[in-house]
């Protein structure tokens, strides 16, 4: 069993004059966000969030604005100091680090991509992409070489000597992504990285990210308020509301078993056929039963791709194979239709 790359344990963040004093009200008496604001004039940013983030996965943290998701991600590199709780990265307690250790952590182990790009306007694209390396103290030639590599990878070849102000939003965020990747850090923090882009460009950027992730296998924490984006990118999804964790699981879990009405409301408009996989429908065969003569499909086939073949299969059912090749069970068209309309 692998260890989680990042562990967040019972994290609290309260904004205000004396956060430590009001922390017990929230932690021990369970005071909510609105009540806390009214009674003590403190804002509850993060409320008892625990989250294990596994290596080489994209962990999406989703929530509407004000749900504390951007506050949460800033605790991972301690751009924000928590009021209570723990953050552990590769077994090391981030909150126990002094300034020097913290800088080393930020330089070598993680990088960040921002919603508003936050590029350095006075530096060229090449210099922006090489920024993290320059901070690390890498030599000039090495910076130029590695920056060029990432500029090429995000498709900005030819723009090396332009300034960020000359580029469109989508291109600027490619620079942001290249800057984040150039340091070769294990962890990539993406704070609503694609939210400021228009839908088509956002879709492009998601594709670039997925493509890169396929070969880089980084641990990515991705913040978004967009459910479609969360479902498309996330290996795991955590949903926050008012600073508290409402539900975590993979996309299918959340769509098939929403924890409460808040999430049910969230998912009501999505295309379920794109999320639900045959795995969720598979019913094991009776012991001793011979499998019927029908087509086999892998368990991770999405319903949108499976519906047509299922309708054409004899008896309108198919067999589902697990990732290890073992037979998981059978799935019928009527089950599929029910799953889509729950």
């Amino acid at each position, binding site marked *: 069993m692998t260890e989680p790359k990042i562990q967040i344990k019972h994290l609290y963040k309260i904004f205000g004059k004396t956060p430590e004093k009001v922390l017990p009200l929230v932690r021990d008496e369970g005071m909510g966000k609105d009540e806390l604001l009214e009674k003590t004039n403190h804002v509850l940013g993060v409320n008892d969030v625990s989250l294990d983030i596994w290596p080489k996965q994209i962990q999406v943290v989703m929530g509407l604005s004000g749900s504390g998701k951007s506050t949460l991600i800033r605790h991972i*590199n301690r751009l924000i100091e928590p009021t209570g709780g723990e953050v552990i990265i590769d077994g090391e307690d981030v909150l126990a680090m002094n300034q020097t250790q913290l*800088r*080393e952590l*930020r*330089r070598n182990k993680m990088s960040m991509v921002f919603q508003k790009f*936050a590029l350095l*306007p006075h530096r060229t694209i090449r210099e922006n992409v090489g920024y*993290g390396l320059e901070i690390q103290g890498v030599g000039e030639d090495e910076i130029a070489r590695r920056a060029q590599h990432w500029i090429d990878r995000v498709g900005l070849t030819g723009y090396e000597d332009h300034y960020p102000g*000359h580029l469109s939003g989508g291109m600027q965020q490619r620079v942001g992504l290249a800057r984040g990747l150039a340091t070769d850090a294990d962890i990539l923090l993406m704070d609503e990285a694609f939210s400021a882009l228009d839908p088509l460009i956002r879709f492009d950027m998601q594709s670039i990210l997925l493509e890169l992730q396929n070969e880089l296998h980084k641990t990515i924490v991705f913040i978004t308020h967009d459910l479609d984006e969360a479902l498309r990118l996330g290996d795991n999804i955590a949903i926050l509301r008012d600073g508290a964790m409402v539900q975590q699981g993979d996309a299918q879990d959340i769509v098939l078993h929403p924890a409460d009405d808040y999430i049910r409301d969230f998912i009501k408009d999505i295309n379920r056929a794109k999320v639900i996989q045959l795995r969720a429908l598979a019913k094991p065969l009776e012991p001793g039963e011979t499998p019927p003569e029908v087509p086999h499909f892998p368990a991770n086939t999405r319903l949108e791709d499976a519906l047509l073949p299922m309708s054409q299969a004899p008896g309108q059912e198919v067999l589902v194979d697990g990732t290890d090749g073992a037979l998981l069970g059978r799935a019928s068209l009527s089950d599929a239709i029910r799953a889509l309309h729950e």
Partner: protein
Amino acid sequence: MWESLTEFPDLGRSTLSTMKKAIDAGFKGFSRTYGEALENFFNPLLHFLVWFEKLLINTPWPIILLVIGALAWLGSRSWKVTGLSVLAFVVIGVFGMWEDTMATLAIISVATFLCILIGIPIGILMARSDRAQTMITPVLDVMQTIPSFVYLIPVVMLLGIGKVPGLIAVLIYAIPPIVRLTNLGIRLVDPDVLEAADAFGASPRQKLLGVQIPLALPNIFAGVNQTIMMSLSMVVIASMIGVRGLGVPVLRAVQNQYLALGMMNGLAIVALAIIFDRISQSYGKRLQAYRGQGRD
């Protein structure tokens, strides 16, 4: 009864006069004790100032014109500004004000250099600490608003008449804008960009030199421009305590009602001001060439 309301109950003439006398005596004592030490302290500055003035006056005028033209071109990259700058100096020379202009140029250059040297670090300090800002801001306010003649008194008492006290008077008046604009420029740097620098593990030094100062540079440069303008405006007052230059004939014109002399030298000061302003402003604009051309 009525009299006690119209007359403010002040400390009384004799008390006030004793008090003032005591302060004056105290300062005179201070001046006697430390005046010479202070003068020695400022001696290198005086030598430099004299050397620089002589250099400007003794350099053949075509070379000066060439240097002016080159500086104007390097600063503004505009033939118009370069041409007009050289032309203005030619006119000044033709009207017999060359030597005074060189003397003024010398003190302005040294004053501006010192203002940058002292002012930018103070501005950085103010930007980094709110406490420093609350302490320094009122001092700057006083420096900018107190009538120059008031601080000329102690300066002259301490250092006598001459170039150095004149330079100090110019500095007191001209340093606030560069301090303020350095502070403002650094504080106006986009917090998102600073957060990004933090997220990549930049040290405070890396943030200051790599992000804050470069991004504050247009504002810092506006401060340099203001400093130059304000030191030029002090030229006449400085001439009252023995600084050579265009202020001296203006002062003479005021005392003797010489209209033409006053106008000519006054206009020469204006010409210098406009030249410096245009050159430094267009240089400042070039510093932020990366802005504004964006397609949004």
